[in-house]
């Protein structure tokens, strides 16, 4: 599946999944399950449900892979198969190295035992040498950091404490492969940070990490590649960014992923007289040039364009070009942070859209949406469009940013009643660089003043 890994030697592979099928048997009742299992003539009582249908991929040693997919796509089944809890119906899974799996919160823990007792018991079952157990328990106690609760029965734990002990237990077996099934969301932010930094350090040590998460941001930050599953099949295995784009398309779009290249240079003829439609005060000749230029989009020559943008949508409209001015000036490299930004976009409509919507978001490099809005949220009604026309829109922002790198998402959507469809969504299409500021830190420079308003009110 992954062209790079096919060429790899066998010994470089951490996990090799070859043509794996997993079929669940669904029974009307437990009794029918019992009857079938013991039936002397193997009578069938079940219906079959195929959770994975013939998937294959290889994961190299030290690779960290996110597994994405909608509910029921087969993510958990896949992880359980790799962890060895389930056996595939057919196909082979070879795993090279020691696997530590965090499949479910508190799996393998007896709620009646204390954290310490559970950790000791789990260590023994996981095959840790007897004389290594005390050190391991001490390390887990320190990492989990649940204080006196470590010697309390786990049934009195909060779910966060449970997750702490479970995670600490899983990573402290020196795994070659760590499998994490979306349970870190339970801990508080401080512990999550600790877990992710531990995961990063494991990655640096060459531990292969498999990650299931619904948060594409988490996958983007922690994984170099990703696998997208959809109804039991691998849709895509490749670089995380590319897979995330397809995943978004699957979630919000119609499934017809737009290609980034080659579509933008089509007929721009109809815009010839566009400037005559313009209203209000607009910066001079550069904007007119932008609106009138035909064949070659402006943005590709712009230093603001991020070629690693992620794009999805159903293709009924395309954002074909953009143009940005800061305080009316088009030529800038680095922003000082408090300029007024005007973003002009040209949208080509391939269909009549009764209620088009335009949206934007400012995003941090980690993928956190710092702020975002759209015309639907601000209750601005845009005129309807006809097939084949290109329209221009102006988005004005005053973001007051602090120093650093920022990205802008731009999108066109369609609203029909309450349902919302992405026509073209270009994530992180614009890259803005803001100069370091002495006066504030963080993402936004929120206006701030402080002054004394009295002499000493009280004195000891």
């Amino acid at each position: 599946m992954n062209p790079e890994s096919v060429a790899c030697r066998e010994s470089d592979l951490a996990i090799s999944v070859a043509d794996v099928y997993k079929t669940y048997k669904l029974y009307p009742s437990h009794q029918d399950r019992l009857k079938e299992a013991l039936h002397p003539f193997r009578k069938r009582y079940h219906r079959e449900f195929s959770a994975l249908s013939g998937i294959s991929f290889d994961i190299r040693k030290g690779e960290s892979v996110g597994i994405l997919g909608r509910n029921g796509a087969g993510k958990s089944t896949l992880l359980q198969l790799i962890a060895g809890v389930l056996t595939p119906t057919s196909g082979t899974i070879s795993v090279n190295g020691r696997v530590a799996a965090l499949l479910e919160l508190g799996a393998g823990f007896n709620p009646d035992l204390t954290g310490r007792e559970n950790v000791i018991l789990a260590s023994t079952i996981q095959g840790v040498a007897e004389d290594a157990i005390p050190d391991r328990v001490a390390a887990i106690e320190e990492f989990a950091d649940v204080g006196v609760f470590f010697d309390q029965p786990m049934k009195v734990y909060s779910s966060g404490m449970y997750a702490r002990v479970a995670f600490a237990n899983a990573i402290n077996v020196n795994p070659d492969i760590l499998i994490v099934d979306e349970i870190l969301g339970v801990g508080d932010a401080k512990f999550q940070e600790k877990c992710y930094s531990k995961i990063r350090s494991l990655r640096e040590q060459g531990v292969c990490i498999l990650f299931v998460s619904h948060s594409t941001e988490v996958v983007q930050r922690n994984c170099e590649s990703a696998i997208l599953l959809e109804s039991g099949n691998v849709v895509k295995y490749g670089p995380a960014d590319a897979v995330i784009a397809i995943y978004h398309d699957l979630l919000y779009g119609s499934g017809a992923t737009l290609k980034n290249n080659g579509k933008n240079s089509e007929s721009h003829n109809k815009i010839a007289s566009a400037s005559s439609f313009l209203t209000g005060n607009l910066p001079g000749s550069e904007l007119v040039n932008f609106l009138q230029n035909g064949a070659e989009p402006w943005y590709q020559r712009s230093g603001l364009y991020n070629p690693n943008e992620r794009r999805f949508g159903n293709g009924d409209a395309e954002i074909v070009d953009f143009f940005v001015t800061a305080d009316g000036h088009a030529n800038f490299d680095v922003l000082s942070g408090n300029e007024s930004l005007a973003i002009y976009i040209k949208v080509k409509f391939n269909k009549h859209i009764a209620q088009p919507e335009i949206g934007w978001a400012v995003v941090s490099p980690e993928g956190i949406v710092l702020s975002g809005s759209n015309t639907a949220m601000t209750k601005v009604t845009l005129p309807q469009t006809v097939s084949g026309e290109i329209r221009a829109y102006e988005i004005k922002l005053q973001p007051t940013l602090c120093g650093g790198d920022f990205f802008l998402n731009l999108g066109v959507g369609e609203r029909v009643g309450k349902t919302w469809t992405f026509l073209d969504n270009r994530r992180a299409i614009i890259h803005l660089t803001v100069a370091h500021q002495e006066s504030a830190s963080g993402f936004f420079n929120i206006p701030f003043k402080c002054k004394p308003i009295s002499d000493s009110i009280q004195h000891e």
Partner: protein
Amino acid sequence: MNAVIRFLIGLYQGRRTIRALARRDVLSRYSGTLFRSAWELANPALTLLVFWFVFSVALKAKGPDGIPFILYFVTGYVPWLFFSESLLRGTQGVVAHSFLVKKMVFPSELLPFVYLSGGALNHVVLLLLAAVVLLFNGVAVSWYWLQIPYYFLTLCATLLGLQWLLSALNVFSRDLGQGVGVVLNVWFWVTPVVWVADGVVPAEYQWLMAANPVGYVVEGYRGALLYHKPFWINWEQGFYVWAVALVFAWIGANVFRRLKPHFGDVL
């Protein structure tokens, strides 16, 4: 045959898991509160006392050949207690360890061994108690007492297959645990624990006595501790009991093996 060898290798590899879980089992019974550990011994001691009072004092029963009833009773009751407790606890075994069975790679077929080795400690303590009672009543220490491990192993072998069978079935229908309790109640009176087998049982029911593996073990304990009888005088029944145990182990292991893949889905 391959499957059997792989199975035995699995047991050997799981020996540390068995030990850890058995230790856990023993600790959970004896640690925690002082009362709990006291109850573990007080319960059988109280039973002994009640039976002794009812049969010796109230009914003026005598053991055969003028042996005090308490001696006759204690030598049979100690192995019976091990049997009934192991069977009750073993039946719940898989369900009780569902936290390990569900989402982990856990060899649940080890569980009968966990209960047998965990219960063995309790058994040894009760045996020592019984020995004290015997010595107080003037029964001499004898080389024949060394036959106890043989009878204990026979009992364990009988329990092994039953535990596999019942613990697996219990996953699917939890009422089985209740049923086992009822059956054990009847089984207790079928086994010569409180009553004397010789001369009491009508001829047409003798086969029932001979067919009961627990009866063989109970009489074996008694013969070794009290009458100083060697185990080979009853070799035919010994042969039969072991054959039954092996057949049950085979059935139990197969049922368990077939049902095990479903545990995760049902628990």
